Protein backbone atom coordinates (compact mmCIF):
# COMPACT_ATOMS: atom_id res chain seq x y z
CA UNK A 1 0.00 0.00 0.00
CA UNK A 2 2.82 2.37 0.99
CA UNK A 3 4.70 1.30 -2.15
CA UNK A 4 1.65 2.01 -4.33
CA UNK A 5 1.22 5.51 -2.89
CA UNK A 6 4.89 6.34 -3.36
CA UNK A 7 4.81 5.01 -6.93
CA UNK A 8 1.83 7.17 -7.84
CA UNK A 9 3.60 10.32 -6.59
CA UNK A 10 6.82 9.38 -8.39
CA UNK A 11 4.97 8.66 -11.62
CA UNK A 12 3.18 12.03 -11.49
CA UNK A 13 6.61 13.64 -11.00
CA UNK A 14 7.92 11.70 -14.01
CA UNK A 15 4.97 12.84 -16.17
CA UNK A 16 5.65 16.50 -15.42
CA UNK A 17 9.39 16.26 -15.94
CA UNK A 18 9.29 14.14 -19.11
CA UNK A 19 6.34 16.11 -20.54
CA UNK A 20 5.75 13.25 -22.95
CA UNK A 21 2.89 10.80 -23.54
CA UNK A 22 5.01 8.63 -25.82
CA UNK A 23 4.46 4.92 -25.05
CA UNK A 24 8.14 4.14 -24.39
CA UNK A 25 8.54 7.16 -22.07
CA UNK A 26 5.42 6.14 -20.15
CA UNK A 27 6.60 2.53 -19.82
CA UNK A 28 10.03 3.59 -18.57
CA UNK A 29 8.50 6.01 -16.09
CA UNK A 30 6.10 3.37 -14.81
CA UNK A 31 8.84 0.77 -14.28
CA UNK A 32 11.16 3.23 -12.51
CA UNK A 33 8.36 4.66 -10.35
CA UNK A 34 7.34 1.20 -9.15
CA UNK A 35 10.94 0.14 -8.47
CA UNK A 36 11.69 3.29 -6.46
CA UNK A 37 8.28 3.18 -4.77
CA UNK A 38 8.90 -0.38 -3.52
CA UNK A 39 12.43 0.55 -2.44
CA UNK A 40 11.21 3.65 -0.54
CA UNK A 41 8.46 1.71 1.22
CA UNK A 42 10.85 -1.07 2.25
CA UNK A 43 13.77 1.05 3.45
CA UNK A 44 13.00 4.75 4.03
CA UNK A 45 9.51 4.25 5.40
CA UNK A 46 9.84 0.79 6.91
CA UNK A 47 8.67 2.01 10.33
CA UNK A 48 6.75 5.24 9.93
CA UNK A 49 5.50 6.22 6.49
CA UNK A 50 4.63 9.89 5.81
CA UNK A 51 1.05 9.01 4.88
CA UNK A 52 -1.46 11.83 5.40
CA UNK A 53 -5.20 11.64 5.89
CA UNK A 54 -7.32 13.82 3.59
CA UNK A 55 -7.74 16.37 6.39
CA UNK A 56 -3.98 16.48 7.03
CA UNK A 57 -3.28 16.91 3.32
CA UNK A 58 -5.70 19.88 3.33
CA UNK A 59 -3.93 21.37 6.36
CA UNK A 60 -0.61 20.89 4.58
CA UNK A 61 -1.86 22.87 1.57
CA UNK A 62 -2.96 25.64 3.97
CA UNK A 63 0.54 25.62 5.51
CA UNK A 64 2.28 26.29 2.16
CA UNK A 65 1.43 30.06 1.93
CA UNK A 66 2.86 30.55 5.42
CA UNK A 67 6.05 28.75 4.36
CA UNK A 68 6.34 30.80 1.15
CA UNK A 69 5.97 34.02 3.12
CA UNK A 70 8.73 32.88 5.49
CA UNK A 71 11.00 32.03 2.56
CA UNK A 72 10.61 35.51 1.08
CA UNK A 73 11.24 37.19 4.45
CA UNK A 74 14.29 34.91 5.05
CA UNK A 75 15.90 35.78 1.74
CA UNK A 76 15.35 39.52 2.16
CA UNK A 77 16.67 39.44 5.71
CA UNK A 78 19.80 37.41 4.89
CA UNK A 79 20.52 39.61 1.83
CA UNK A 80 20.23 42.69 4.01
CA UNK A 81 22.63 41.30 6.64
CA UNK A 82 25.13 40.18 4.00
CA UNK A 83 25.18 43.54 2.22
CA UNK A 84 25.44 45.57 5.45
CA UNK A 85 29.11 46.62 5.85
CA UNK A 86 28.92 46.07 9.64
CA UNK A 87 27.42 42.58 9.11
CA UNK A 88 25.20 42.64 12.22
CA UNK A 89 25.25 38.98 13.31
CA UNK A 90 25.73 37.41 16.71
CA UNK A 91 25.29 33.66 16.12
CA UNK A 92 23.98 31.31 18.77
CA UNK A 93 23.00 27.62 18.98
CA UNK A 94 19.99 26.75 21.10
CA UNK A 95 18.30 23.46 21.95
CA UNK A 96 14.54 23.20 21.65
CA UNK A 97 12.42 20.26 22.87
CA UNK A 98 9.33 19.29 20.92
CA UNK A 99 6.46 16.86 21.57
CA UNK A 100 6.37 15.29 18.09
CA UNK A 101 5.34 11.66 17.71
CA UNK A 102 5.89 11.11 13.98
CA UNK A 103 9.03 11.10 11.88
CA UNK A 104 7.31 13.12 9.12
CA UNK A 105 6.60 15.95 11.59
CA UNK A 106 10.27 16.03 12.66
CA UNK A 107 11.44 16.18 9.04
CA UNK A 108 8.95 18.93 8.19
CA UNK A 109 9.93 20.87 11.33
CA UNK A 110 13.68 20.65 10.62
CA UNK A 111 13.09 21.78 7.02
CA UNK A 112 10.70 24.57 8.05
CA UNK A 113 13.21 25.93 10.58
CA UNK A 114 15.81 26.07 7.84
CA UNK A 115 13.41 28.06 5.64
CA UNK A 116 12.46 30.38 8.53
CA UNK A 117 14.31 33.73 8.81
CA UNK A 118 17.70 33.54 10.53
CA UNK A 119 17.49 29.92 11.72
CA UNK A 120 19.06 26.63 10.62
CA UNK A 121 18.62 23.13 12.06
CA UNK A 122 22.05 21.68 12.89
CA UNK A 123 21.11 18.49 14.72
CA UNK A 124 18.17 16.43 15.92
CA UNK A 125 18.49 14.11 18.91
CA UNK A 126 15.25 12.29 19.68
CA UNK A 127 12.89 15.23 20.03
CA UNK A 128 15.42 17.94 20.79
CA UNK A 129 16.32 20.16 17.86
CA UNK A 130 19.58 22.11 17.88
CA UNK A 131 19.08 25.36 16.02
CA UNK A 132 21.72 27.79 14.81
CA UNK A 133 20.48 31.38 14.73
CA UNK A 134 22.15 34.37 13.12
CA UNK A 135 21.15 36.24 16.30
CA UNK A 136 19.21 35.47 19.45
CA UNK A 137 16.17 37.39 18.25
CA UNK A 138 15.63 34.75 15.52
CA UNK A 139 15.78 31.72 17.83
CA UNK A 140 13.29 33.42 20.19
CA UNK A 141 10.68 32.90 17.51
CA UNK A 142 11.34 29.13 17.51
CA UNK A 143 11.28 29.04 21.31
CA UNK A 144 7.78 30.59 21.26
CA UNK A 145 6.56 27.26 19.83
CA UNK A 146 4.26 28.76 17.21
CA UNK A 147 5.85 26.81 14.35
CA UNK A 148 5.59 23.47 16.16
CA UNK A 149 1.91 24.12 16.96
CA UNK A 150 1.28 24.68 13.26
CA UNK A 151 3.02 21.43 12.29
CA UNK A 152 1.23 19.47 15.03
CA UNK A 153 -2.01 20.67 13.45
CA UNK A 154 -0.87 19.54 10.00
CA UNK A 155 0.63 16.12 10.76
CA UNK A 156 -0.49 14.90 14.17
CA UNK A 157 -4.18 15.78 14.60
Amino acid at each position, binding site marked *: MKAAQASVVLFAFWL*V*LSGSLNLIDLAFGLILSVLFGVWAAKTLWAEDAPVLTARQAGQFVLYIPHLLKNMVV*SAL*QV*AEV*VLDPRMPIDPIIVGHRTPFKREVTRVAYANSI*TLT*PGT*LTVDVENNTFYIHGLAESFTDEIASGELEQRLMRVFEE
Partner: protein
Amino acid sequence: MSAIDVVSIGLIAIGALFFIAGSVGVLRFPDVYTRLHALTKADNLGLGFVVLGLALRADSAVVIAKLAVTWALVVVAGATAGPLVAEAARTSGVHPWRRSK
Protein backbone atom coordinates in the same frame (compact mmCIF):
# COMPACT_ATOMS: atom_id res chain seq x y z
CA MET B 1 10.74 44.28 -27.04
CA SER B 2 7.28 43.39 -25.79
CA ALA B 3 5.95 44.15 -22.31
CA ILE B 4 6.34 40.47 -21.41
CA ASP B 5 10.03 40.63 -22.32
CA VAL B 6 10.55 43.64 -20.06
CA VAL B 7 8.80 42.03 -17.08
CA SER B 8 10.58 38.72 -17.69
CA ILE B 9 14.02 40.36 -17.87
CA GLY B 10 13.23 42.37 -14.73
CA LEU B 11 12.25 39.24 -12.78
CA ILE B 12 15.35 37.33 -13.90
CA ALA B 13 17.55 40.30 -12.95
CA ILE B 14 15.99 40.43 -9.47
CA GLY B 15 16.64 36.68 -9.18
CA ALA B 16 20.27 37.23 -10.13
CA LEU B 17 20.59 39.88 -7.40
CA PHE B 18 19.52 37.35 -4.77
CA PHE B 19 22.01 34.82 -6.14
CA ILE B 20 24.72 37.48 -5.88
CA ALA B 21 23.67 38.27 -2.30
CA GLY B 22 23.85 34.55 -1.44
CA SER B 23 27.33 34.27 -2.96
CA VAL B 24 28.53 37.42 -1.19
CA GLY B 25 27.23 35.83 2.02
CA VAL B 26 29.31 32.71 1.42
CA LEU B 27 32.38 34.93 1.02
CA ARG B 28 31.69 37.31 3.90
CA PHE B 29 30.19 35.10 6.61
CA PRO B 30 32.72 33.73 9.10
CA ASP B 31 31.95 29.98 9.39
CA VAL B 32 30.18 27.01 7.82
CA TYR B 33 26.93 27.53 9.78
CA THR B 34 26.45 31.18 8.90
CA ARG B 35 27.37 30.45 5.27
CA LEU B 36 24.63 27.85 5.11
CA HIS B 37 22.15 30.59 6.09
CA ALA B 38 23.19 32.58 3.02
CA LEU B 39 22.98 29.57 0.70
CA THR B 40 19.75 28.00 1.89
CA LYS B 41 17.81 31.27 2.01
CA ALA B 42 18.89 33.77 -0.63
CA ASP B 43 19.17 31.22 -3.45
CA ASN B 44 15.63 29.89 -2.91
CA LEU B 45 14.12 33.28 -3.63
CA GLY B 46 16.66 33.98 -6.39
CA LEU B 47 15.68 30.83 -8.24
CA GLY B 48 12.00 31.65 -7.56
CA PHE B 49 12.34 34.96 -9.43
CA VAL B 50 14.32 33.34 -12.27
CA VAL B 51 11.64 30.65 -12.60
CA LEU B 52 8.87 33.29 -12.66
CA GLY B 53 10.73 35.22 -15.33
CA LEU B 54 11.21 32.09 -17.44
CA ALA B 55 7.59 30.98 -16.92
CA LEU B 56 6.44 34.16 -18.69
CA ARG B 57 8.37 33.01 -21.77
CA ALA B 58 7.27 29.37 -21.66
CA ASP B 59 5.31 28.15 -24.68
CA SER B 60 3.17 25.59 -22.86
CA ALA B 61 1.65 24.78 -19.49
CA VAL B 62 3.85 21.66 -19.29
CA VAL B 63 6.98 23.82 -19.35
CA ILE B 64 5.56 26.05 -16.59
CA ALA B 65 4.76 22.97 -14.50
CA LYS B 66 8.28 21.69 -15.09
CA LEU B 67 9.78 25.00 -13.93
CA ALA B 68 7.58 25.00 -10.82
CA VAL B 69 8.50 21.40 -9.96
CA THR B 70 12.20 22.17 -10.47
CA TRP B 71 11.95 25.10 -8.07
CA ALA B 72 10.10 23.03 -5.45
CA LEU B 73 12.73 20.28 -5.76
CA VAL B 74 15.59 22.74 -5.25
CA VAL B 75 13.89 24.29 -2.20
CA VAL B 76 13.28 20.90 -0.57
CA ALA B 77 16.79 19.68 -1.46
CA GLY B 78 18.33 22.86 0.00
CA ALA B 79 16.28 22.66 3.20
CA THR B 80 17.36 19.01 3.56
CA ALA B 81 21.02 19.28 2.53
CA GLY B 82 21.69 22.43 4.61
CA PRO B 83 21.02 20.72 7.96
CA LEU B 84 22.97 17.63 6.79
CA VAL B 85 26.07 19.75 6.13
CA ALA B 86 25.57 21.53 9.47
CA GLU B 87 25.17 18.22 11.30
CA ALA B 88 28.34 16.86 9.69
CA ALA B 89 30.23 19.99 10.79
CA ARG B 90 28.85 19.71 14.32
CA THR B 91 29.65 16.03 14.77
CA SER B 92 33.19 16.58 13.49
CA GLY B 93 33.62 19.29 16.13
CA VAL B 94 33.48 22.56 14.20
CA HIS B 95 32.68 25.26 16.76
CA PRO B 96 30.32 28.00 15.63
CA TRP B 97 31.83 31.43 15.24
CA ARG B 98 30.91 33.81 18.07
CA ARG B 99 31.17 37.57 18.08
CA SER B 100 33.93 38.33 20.59
CA LYS B 101 32.57 40.49 23.35
